[in-house]
């Protein structure tokens, strides 16, 4: 899969100006979202998210460890992403490159800053033992917008997770013994949405072909319109108007996406 050619790129941009896309969507319209939870037996929580042809797997693993010195009574969170070479001819083996690192970090902040996880409830013994949550994200097929798929996957997997049994005397986790204890999560669901500036247009949920043309992007983590994280990426700048437009659009799209995923998160 080679990069989108200039000719195709020009055509895509022309379509955008007429509020059209190759696949018939509106500029602010997401593809179909499918979520399956509990897909992994050995993870504490898991989810498979498909946005169109894009597919990611997210798993939650838990471990007991020491708290960080600056938060002795709070659990820890670690978000790792792997862009598997299996999922695209563009991804290669080897040490993680920037897109992989950024993906993990943007999702990490989106979840952390939203206060979705009540970390103080993941403390076992203050200053000594707390639960560490690992959120691991794997791409299975990259057809654009892995970021949003990963964010939705992380939320779905967290909702699906059950805390494993912990034997405090022997300091051992019995992973095989599943409990019914859910993670301490807030009711409000944070959703991370990435908006892209392409030419004069702002679009969401790009396909791979469209994402290649992205000049600037903004990922916004918000819940009921309250923004808790934001990151601008890529080289080009944004005007104030464009930025306002992005904020306005985000509000609408957050609601749209929530409606699409709500039924899967029960």
């Amino acid at each position, binding site marked *: 899969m080679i990069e989108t050619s200039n000719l195709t790129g020009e055509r895509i941009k022309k379509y955008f100006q007429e509020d059209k896309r190759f696949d018939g969507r509106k500029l602010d319209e997401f593809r179909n979202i499918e979520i399956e939870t509990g897909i*992994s037996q050995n993870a504490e929580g898991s989810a498979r998210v498909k946005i169109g*042809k894009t597919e990611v797997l997210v798993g939650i693993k838990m*471990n007991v460890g020491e708290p960080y010195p600056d938060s002795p009574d709070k659990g820890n969170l670690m978000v790792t992403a792997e862009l598997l070479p299996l999922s695209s001819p563009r991804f290669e083996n080897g040490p993680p490159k920037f897109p992989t690192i950024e993906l993990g970090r943007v999702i990490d902040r989106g979840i952390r800053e939203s206060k979705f996880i009540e970390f103080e409830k993941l403390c076992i013994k203050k200053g000594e033992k707390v639960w560490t949550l690992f959120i*691991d994200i*794997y791409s299975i*097929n990259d*057809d654009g917008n892995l970021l949003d798929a990963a964010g939705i996957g992380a939320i779905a997997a967290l909702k699906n997770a059950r805390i494993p049994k912990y034997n405090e005397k022997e300091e051992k986790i019995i992973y095989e013994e599943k409990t019914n204890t859910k993670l301490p999560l807030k009711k409000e669901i944070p959703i991370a949405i990435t908006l892209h500036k392409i030419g004069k247009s702002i679009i969401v949920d790009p396909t791979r072909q469209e994402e290649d043309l992205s000049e600037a992007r903004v990922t916004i983590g918000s819940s009921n319109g309250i923004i808790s994280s934001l990151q601008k990426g890529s080289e080009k700048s944004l005007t104030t108007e464009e930025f306002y437009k992005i904020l306005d659009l985000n509000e609408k799209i957050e609601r749209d996406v929530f409606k699409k995923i709500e039924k899967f998160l029960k």
Partner: protein
Amino acid sequence: MTNKEFKRPDGRKIDEIRPMSAKVGVVPNADGSAIFKFGETIAIAAVYGPRKMHPQHSQNPEKGTLRCNYNMISFSVTDRIRPGPSRRSTEISKITEWALEPVVMLEKYANMVVDVHINILQANASTRCAGINAAAMALAHAGIPMKDMVSSVSIGKLDKQLVVDVNKYEEDWEEGEGATDIPISLTSNEEITHFQLDGKITKEELKKALKLAKKARKEIYEVQKKALKELPGVEK
């Protein structure tokens, strides 16, 4: 030797493989892809190529290169695996290449590489065998010329009893002589392309293990073949 009284922990017969399932075309981006399951062990494989080998000094002007990469995803097992390659995964990657190379016709692809990416989504023992089965299917699905199919199975010896397709519980067998794990890969011509062994076994028992593997191969091959024939757009 074949003790009819022997009870496997999950109630299977000694030569019974866990329920298998397979499907091709599971990664739309890839040139070929497949998923293969031995019960709860799930492997997914994707093939990219043949494409130009980079860097140039790795190119082989005589024939193409088959490059396999085996990776377990972090939450495929109960104790989280740190993402990234390990000594174990590096070795299994190479073993997988060796298991498949004898059937892949690389002569036409000088200076090119065929990449096979295998990921274990869920592990309950026999992951390398599930990976090889998925990889062989993905290669066929990608239309890479092959002389034959490869099917892989792990034979186990639990104390003195040989069994087919060991699961995690059996792999950790401690009674008597303990567990011997023997993953074997065979072509449809019953040529051995991969053979490993960890444990303790006599020559006679090992011959019997190979016999069991040959029988299991037929069943696995049928599952692989059926999935490839069910490929969308192919007439039956």
